[in-house]
């Protein structure tokens, strides 16, 4: 990861391009998924393929329209949705801690050359932070009150720099699309499951034979796992990158390293964060058992890289910095 720290500002356009491709891919998969489900419903329940059924597909256009509506909502008001679902509030500048946070965000906005993001706080003792928003002009940064209590100025600065690095690399847009579309997929598979088990349609499905029912069942079962893995795949490498970029803004990798150490020792689950939003956060807001392990299986299931490794890499960056004298 030392390379990422050295490689300078020119990388942002490459990362943004990569994220754009990933976003497009996810949206495409999302639409295909809705198309499949719509088509499955048409063929299985509405007897679209038989001469006695309706002449036009019904469920397919409805499913596609739903997909389009969800995708548009994800893009334009997804960040408000996420913020309100977590109970985020605007900063109260009469409190010294929050005024300090506002100042730190201002400092890091200057260091990164980004416009000042809207800053929010979640009143929760669990120390954590996240950033969201479709681009740098509509970005929001959110920290918990527990983080402000736990960390000193330098450490908070490291955390804020990490979050701004996510905004700068357009990670937040991808993550936004992932979390809202993920929520949509989970919702839809629940709905498909209910209609699958409802008595009205069961006899008809049974009559159609197992050949068509099995793919649909698989879809229902696999969809949450599939979307979950998707969210994880796009999340872990990004954390290392954001750590490195954040250190580039503060020129002080130890700030974030100390912050992560403190957070690790004080970690407790964030009550309002669900599976749909876990990947947004600085450190995993869910149970931290997996985060502490390394290895192929843990890598596959965790939304975040192991904290110990992130801290080690930050310390190494600090060492490199001393040697090169920058």
């Amino acid at each position: 990861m030392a390379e990422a720290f050295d490689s300078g500002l020119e990388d942002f356009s490459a990362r943004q391009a990569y994220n754009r491709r990933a976003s497009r891919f996810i949206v495409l998969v999302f639409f295909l998924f809705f198309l499949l489900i719509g088509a499955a419903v048409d063929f299985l329940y509405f007897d679209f393929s038989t001469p006695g059924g309706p002449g036009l597909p019904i469920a397919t256009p409805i499913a596609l329209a739903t997909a389009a509506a969800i995708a548009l909502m994800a893009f334009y008001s997804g960040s408000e949705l996420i913020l309100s679902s977590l109970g985020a509030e605007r900063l109260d500048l009469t409190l010294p801690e929050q005024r300090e946070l506002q100042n730190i965000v201002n400092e890091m906005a200057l260091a990164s050359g980004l416009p000042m993001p809207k800053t929010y706080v979640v009143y929760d003792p669990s120390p954590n932070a996240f950033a969201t928003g479709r681009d740098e002009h509509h970005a929001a940064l959110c920290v918990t009150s527990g983080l402000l209590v736990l960390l000193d100025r330098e450490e908070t600065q490291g955390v804020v720099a990490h979050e701004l690095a996510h905004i700068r690399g357009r990670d937040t847009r991808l993550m936004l699309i992932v979390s809202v579309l993920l929520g949509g997929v989970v919702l839809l598979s629940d709905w498909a499951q209910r209609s699958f088990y409802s008595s009205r349609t069961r006899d008809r499905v049974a009559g159609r034979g197992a050949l068509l029912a099995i793919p649909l069942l698989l879809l229902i079962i696999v969809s949450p796992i599939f979307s979950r893995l998707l969210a994880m795949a796009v999340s872990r490498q990004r954390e290392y990158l954001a750590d490195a970029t954040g250190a580039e803004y503060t020129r002080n990798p130890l700030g974030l390293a100390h912050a992560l150490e403190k957070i690790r020792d004080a970690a407790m689950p964030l009550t309002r964060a669900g599976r749909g939003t876990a990947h947004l956060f600085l450190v995993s807001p869910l149970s931290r058992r997996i985060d502490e392990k390394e290895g192929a299986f843990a890598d596959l299931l965790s939304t975040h890289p192991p904290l110990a490794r992130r801290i080690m890499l930050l310390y190494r960056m600090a060492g490199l910095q001393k040697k090169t004298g920058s």
Partner: protein
Amino acid sequence: MGWVVLAVLAAAVLWVVVSYNALVTLRNAIQNAWKQIDVQLKRRHDLIPNLVETVRGYMKYEQQTLEKVMEARSRAVTSTSVKDSAAAENALTQSLGRIFALMENYPDLKADDNVLRLQEELTTTENQITFARQYYNDLVMRYNTKQEVFPGNLVASFFDFKPGEFFAVAETDKGVPRVDLSLPA
């Protein structure tokens, strides 16, 4: 055969336009970053008299230090040339650091909400100056690199782009240890 030549020509023109625009965009970003530094310096100049007035009552034995800060401030405000102002601002940074260090000796001061607020305001302004300069230098580095590497240098020299100037930290400033406010009083 003709359309191949035409396509190559069109690509070349397009490339010149793109690189020219990239250079102009960067140049404007650098100017904007420079203005950001000025904004922060102005803010610091406005904050310092407030701080000095607020702490004067507490710091009976440090009147000289306070006077020095005010002097450094007025020199920084009145200096016109870039070089003078850089030197004056650096002197101001140092004298401010001294006040912050001395404030640790006055427990009453640290209990005063007003002082704490001013101290936080000044700390963030100092940091903002540092980070604005850092960003400015990062931009200048990108701008200069773009002008020097081949084939960008052809466009840069043809349109007469000048390399940007780095914001250098004064030699005397480098040896000054950072003021650590967390030290025990």
